[in-house]
């Protein structure tokens, strides 16, 4: 049973939770919540995909369960496992007491991993299931997810099928290191999180780092935008510009200028070639950060 969520209201509540979402992202999230279907967020590293799920959990007062994907991720790590040590002890204890062997597949021996735990959402307290970097998992896991997302149920051979009474909100993220199967993508709402506009980035920096001077936040956002226009190995994401602003704040800077540009570059660019390139065009980037001084 869908619970419609107003897009504008969600956008505002996300902002209240410390996350600046544009209309597109807010719509995708509102659709996912309203129709109880998963949402797939794609985007370059550091644009705030994971944070979107955190903020969503915050907004709905839900528990956040995070499943970090990696190659070789299997059911024992993703869905459930049995507590073997405890099972063995139970057998031995029953033997010693000359009792019947207990049910080895009872609840007490079951270890709930994120996917199974996500099926235990309650009416009062929902669950946001974050399946992070799904592109790092392999095809086999993706195939399993298809089943999971279709029915919100997991079948445990020893126990039967466990189905969700209340469906969790599922957020998948991908860095696009490989293409996902369309079968999986078809089952999700989709949103591409791009790099933010300068205004939005200023807003984000001010929101996350209230101690940083407003001028510095503006400088950093403009300089980050200028950096992104250049041909870098790895364009800075929001995470990097936040690091940059924080670093400059710690260095005691009030504006971004020639004296602190080079020493702080390591916090925003992660390849020596990129740092070299930024150094070579330092003047242009700094003047892009201060449009008022360069034009006047």
């Amino acid at each position, binding site marked *: 049973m*869908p619970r419609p969520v107003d897009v504008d209201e969600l956008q505002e509540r996300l902002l209240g939770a410390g996350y600046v979402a544009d209309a597109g992202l807010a719509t995708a999230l509102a659709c996912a919540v309203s129709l109880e279907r998963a949402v797939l967020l794609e985007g370059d590293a550091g644009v705030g995909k994971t944070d979107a799920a955190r903020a969503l959990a915050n907004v709905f007062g839900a528990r956040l369960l995070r499943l970090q994907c990696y*190659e070789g991720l299997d059911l024992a790590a993703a869905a459930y496992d049995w507590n073997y040590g405890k099972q063995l002890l139970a057998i031995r204890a029953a033997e010693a007491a000359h009792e019947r062997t207990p049910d080895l597949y009872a609840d007490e021996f079951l270890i709930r991993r994120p996917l199974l735990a996500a099926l235990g959402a309650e009416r009062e307290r929902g669950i946001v299931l974050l399946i992070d970097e799904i592109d790092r998992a392999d095809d086999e896991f993706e195939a399993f997810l298809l089943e999971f997302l279709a029915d919100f149920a997991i079948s445990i051979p020893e126990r039967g099928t466990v189905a969700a009474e209340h469906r969790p909100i599922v957020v998948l993220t991908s860095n*696009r290191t490989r293409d996902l199967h369309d079968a999986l993508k078809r089952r999700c709402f989709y949103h591409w999180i791009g790099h933010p506009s300068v205004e939005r980035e200023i807003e984000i920096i001010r929101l996350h780092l209230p101690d940083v001077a407003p001028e510095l936040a503006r400088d950093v956002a403009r300089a980050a935008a200028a950096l992104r226009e250049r041909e870098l190995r790895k364009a800075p994401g929001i995470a990097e510009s936040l690091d940059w602003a924080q670093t400059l704040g710690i260095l005691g800077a009030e504006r971004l200028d020639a004296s602190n540009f080079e020493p702080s570059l390591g916090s925003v660019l992660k390849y020596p070639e990129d740092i070299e390139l930024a150094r070579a065009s330092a003047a242009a980037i700094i003047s892009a950060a201060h449009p008022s001084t360069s034009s006047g």
Partner: protein
Amino acid sequence: MTADVAAIAGGFDGALRARGVSAGTRRAQTFADVLRALPPASAEETYWRARAAMLPSIDDVDGFNAAFLEFFGALGDADALRRLVRSVEAPPRRPPRELPKRETLPPPPSDEPANERLAERAPTQWVVASNEHRLTDKAFEEFDEAERAAMLRLIARVRVAGELRRSRRRRAHAHGDRFDFRGTLRGAARTAGELVRRRATRRREKLRPVVFLLDVSGSMGPFARALVQYAWVTAVARPRVRAFAFATQLTDLTPLLKRASDERLMSALAESVRDYGGGTRIGAALRAFNDRFGQRGAARGGTVVILSDGWERDDPALVGTEMLRLRRLARRIVWVNPHKRHAAYEPLARGMAAALPYLDAFLSGHSLRTLEAVADAIEGRSA
């Protein structure tokens, strides 16, 4: 409006399809659900709702935007809408292609006309079929049209290359190297809790990726066609194969492998060569590949096969830098240069000279037989 919601979603799906964006009925169904649950109040709201539900990937966004303007721009006009809804037709389905058979070269020259299937073939192909031996050593650029058709068939007989690496996934194995607690205990349940049989797992093996980077400019055309055909055959037979074409820009052919017909694959190749204007930008293409695909994992731990004559229009130093980067990502780099078949060949092209220090194998790959050597090199066997 509720009653029309399904029609709108279906019609928009058609508009998308017409623009080459395959969203599919499942997404259209989702879109209809969204329109019902969250009715949009403005064009912008409609746009974002449509995008969240119907856009398959950010790569499709241009086609999506065009289709949106086309379809929802016409919504006000009832006649136009009806016309659009009527225009929704399924595209003609292509017959499934035969799976390539894996045989070894050279194929037996068959002289028995008794076979029914052979008898149905066109006479020209008959001649070609009896000349398969001759084609094996012929350079791809000397093929005429009929021979080329035969070549496509023959290429399916070149050995499909695949190299294994150990995966992080595990499978049960009698002499595995890791004790399997779960399996052992499950077995113990059958023997009244006594741990009788030790079970173990071992790591699985997985195919390493293969990436083809094909220079399609100028004289490389016929060889690129042959290699992309080989990539196609490989992609059908095994996973983790990607192919790219480049002249002055890089084009990803991977989505076309497996699925597309010959003609579509070839027209995509032709498309990528369209902007060609004297020379190739190998360095820029390698850089685009490294930035967008290689660094993200397409080349990691795999083999990269590059087809090019090494004629660089721009600075060959960039070829060197990017080859070094590729060297760090890939396990093996194989360079195919058809000119190498000539005895007097020397790598004088500046791009070629810059790339040479980073290669594991340098081959001619100009004919079906030498393509076998490429297959060997992909697996790291010396030719």
